[in-house]
């Protein structure tokens, strides 16, 4: 078992990425709150964590949950849904080439749909639940967002 490193090292190594993912998922303004909530939750749980093997994945998983909580709390039409599945830890996010910066610049619905799909790995039905819209609308936002990103990155 790997020993837990000083928590400060998690901040040094992953804070910028967590902030980037959260900006994509909830927008620049609300990312700050989600960022604080993410790391406070991580600090609370840290001493009891028994696997230091994938701390980055662990942090991103917490960040995703906070982003989902945020969307559920701010959804226009809070729809009661069955418990949202645990989000798997993500091992690699393609944050190179400034992709997430482009995502950040998308209109809010598209930005959230893209981030929930690709950063949080949620299926369409759960994106719809998180955003408080129909699955068709979620699919459309995602499609529009991807189309726009393709054009900009081409």
């Amino acid at each position, binding site marked *: 078992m790997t*020993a837990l490193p000083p928590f400060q090292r998690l901040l040094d190594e992953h804070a910028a990425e967590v902030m980037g993912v959260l900006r994509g998922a909830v927008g620049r303004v609300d990312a700050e709150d989600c960022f604080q909530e993410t790391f406070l939750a991580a600090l609370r749980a840290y001493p009891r964590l028994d696997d230091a093997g994938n701390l980055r994945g662990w942090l991103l998983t917490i960040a995703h949950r906070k982003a989902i909580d945020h969307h559920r709390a701010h959804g226009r039409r809070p729809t009661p849904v069955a418990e949202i599945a645990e989000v798997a830890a993500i091992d690699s996010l393609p944050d190179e080439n400034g992709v997430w910066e482009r995502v950040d610049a998308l209109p809010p619905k598209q930005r959230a749909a893209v981030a929930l799909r690709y950063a949080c790995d949620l299926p369409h039905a759960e994106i719809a639940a998180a955003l408080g819209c129909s699955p068709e609308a979620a699919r459309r936002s995602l499609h529009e967002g991807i189309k726009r990103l393709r054009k900009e990155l081409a």
Partner: protein
Amino acid sequence: MKASLERLAERAGAEGLIDVAFANVDSPFGPLLIAATRRGLVRVNLPTYDPSETLEELAARVSPRILESPAKLDQARRELDLYFAGKLTAFDLPIDWQLTAGFSGRVQRAINRIPYGQTRSYTEMARSAGNERAVRAAGTACGSNPIPIVVPCHRVLRSGGGLGGYGGGLPMKEELLRLEGVLDQTSR
């Protein structure tokens, strides 16, 4: 990002989520890393040692909930600044002795009572800790002092007046003794 991290340290501190707070402090000898628990100052890392290794050691021995939080070390930073400027002769800081134990612990507490500008021998420290013949162990205890400068192991010399050793290097020991005005009276 800097503002976000400062806010986080502040909130984590307010919620009691920081077990070890640390800060980097400039000194005439290079950067010091100082660390404190809720009980008090627990570690001073001299520039000769890798601060990241010291943080790892603290994670293993005290708690991994370690955060850079200079605000929590304001008083220690202020007192160190004054000490290096020659304007402070006695630190008034709570100390957390949890990294010391046994005979070493007793030696280090005895070191902490040596007044500014005075020196003691390793033999005297062994005697203070209750075993006059354990001179070598007293030397080891000085060398493993987790809170150098504040717990003034630089004030412990060889019986003949020789400097002995110092974790921060002998030039630093000499400089600290000179700062306290004792080196000139000490033959080498």
